[in-house]
């Protein structure tokens, strides 16, 4: 596993859609705050 509980999460930059705008999201920008990161299978799926 490339990730471990208790260790730093890998940094990343992702394109994102946020409330009508396109932006870049970088995990490291959230230092100082708690982050809940949700991975999910696909848009338009019921579950």
């Amino acid at each position, binding site marked *: 596993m490339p990730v471990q509980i*208790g*260790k730093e999460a*890998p940094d990343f930059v992702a394109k994102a*859609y946020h409330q009508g705008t396109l932006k870049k999201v970088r995990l490291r920008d959230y230092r100082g705050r708690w982050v*809940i*990161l*949700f991975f999910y299978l*696909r848009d338009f799926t019921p*579950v």
Partner: protein
Amino acid sequence: MSVDSVDTHRKWQEEELVRMVKGGALFPLCSDPQGEIGKLFGVYDPGPEEDLRATFIIDPEGRIQALEILAGPAGRNIPETLRILRALAHHRSTGNLLPCGWQPGKPVLAPEPGDRHKPAPTWEIWETRNAF
């Protein structure tokens, strides 16, 4: 975060999410088209070429404090994610330990003692029924 493009995220927001909750998704919908970020986090599924249903809780120092991965047709339980987040935040500010099933208002346990301190036994503070 899913493998969908930002354009598909926009369509999903405009066509479905705003009909499910007022304002739609308030947080960024991230795009991971090749699954590279999923692979970094160990949650990319190469068969269907999708990211798995995974939740990571990351603390203010950037460390992963909790991880859940679910397969199959059962969705996540958001109150549980919030419960864990509150427990972790409580520990961070007080040093207390949060037993099974902890919710705000339920008994907490004192921090790990140093060599000179003898803590009260757990059973004097917490009963099994507190877990439910």
